[in-house]
């Protein structure tokens, strides 16, 4: 994907990431996030959460991966994500992105990012500024 191939309003191909218990445990171990709220639904509920939750920075990394699937040589300069509501471990989320701005001088684009659960409820929103070849 080169800058010339991108149009304003272009959708990135949707991604259905794995946030099952094994995937979340693998991420949490590599990120050193060993809090029970990421593995143990009962422990999470004692904190007032609806169940075991996906770490916010895992969701953020998944949204970066969405951009790299679309444009493998993209350089992400800024990635800003807001964790609106908990994403549950074992849910079936979908990630979407749409190009909202293009700057031909810097060959960069801005992308709005959304991560939703299977009910279509937004869990994480974000924006990215990305430079393309």
């Amino acid at each position, binding site marked *: 994907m080169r800058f010339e191939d991108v149009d304003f309003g272009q959708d990135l191909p949707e991604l259905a990431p794995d946030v099952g218990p094994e995937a979340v445990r693998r991420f949490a171990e590599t990120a050193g996030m060993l809090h029970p709220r990421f593995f143990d639904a009962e422990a999470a509920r004692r904190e007032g959460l609806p169940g075991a939750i996906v770490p*916010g920075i895992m969701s953020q990394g998944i949204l970066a991966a969405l951009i790299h699937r679309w444009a493998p040589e993209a350089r992400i*300069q800024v990635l800003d994500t807001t964790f609106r509501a908990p994403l549950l471990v074992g849910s079936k989320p979908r990630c979407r992105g749409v190009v909202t701005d293009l700057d031909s001088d810097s060959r960069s684009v801005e992308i709005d990012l959304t991560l939703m659960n299977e009910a279509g409820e937004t869990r994480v929103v974000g924006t990215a500024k990305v430079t393309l070849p």
Partner: protein
Amino acid sequence: MPVDVAELKRSWTGFEFDRVEFPVTAEELAAFARAVGESAPWFVDPGHPEFRAVPNFTTKYHGRRMWPPDFPRLSKHSVGFDAGKRVEVHAPIRAGDVLTARSQIHDIYEKTGRSGSMVFIVHRMEFSNQRGELAAVVDWRFLQQPDPD
């Protein structure tokens, strides 16, 4: 007592309160990338000549303390929660780098929602490499709801 957000900001922002070094290994770079679903060889294959960190790799690092000494708690009942992360990528992070992370409170601001006042505290970590180059800036927005009067 309502929280004086302007006074909090004046008193607590803009000074370094923690500094930690993190040596970066090829194994942790590749493991983090795989765990978020990346597959490009420059993120997952340590033998690739352009092997480097994914953009939000530095979000996994934590300092020795979350807040400056004596930073006030706004609620007796809740520790608050992580409301978001903003990452600026300045220079590639590669295996063998030693990152120095400097922490400060970058901003404190208030929003009013349906459930009352929400105070956002922005904890900034600036990561520079062993050559003194700025590699990344991570802003962590932490939300606290002050106790009602």
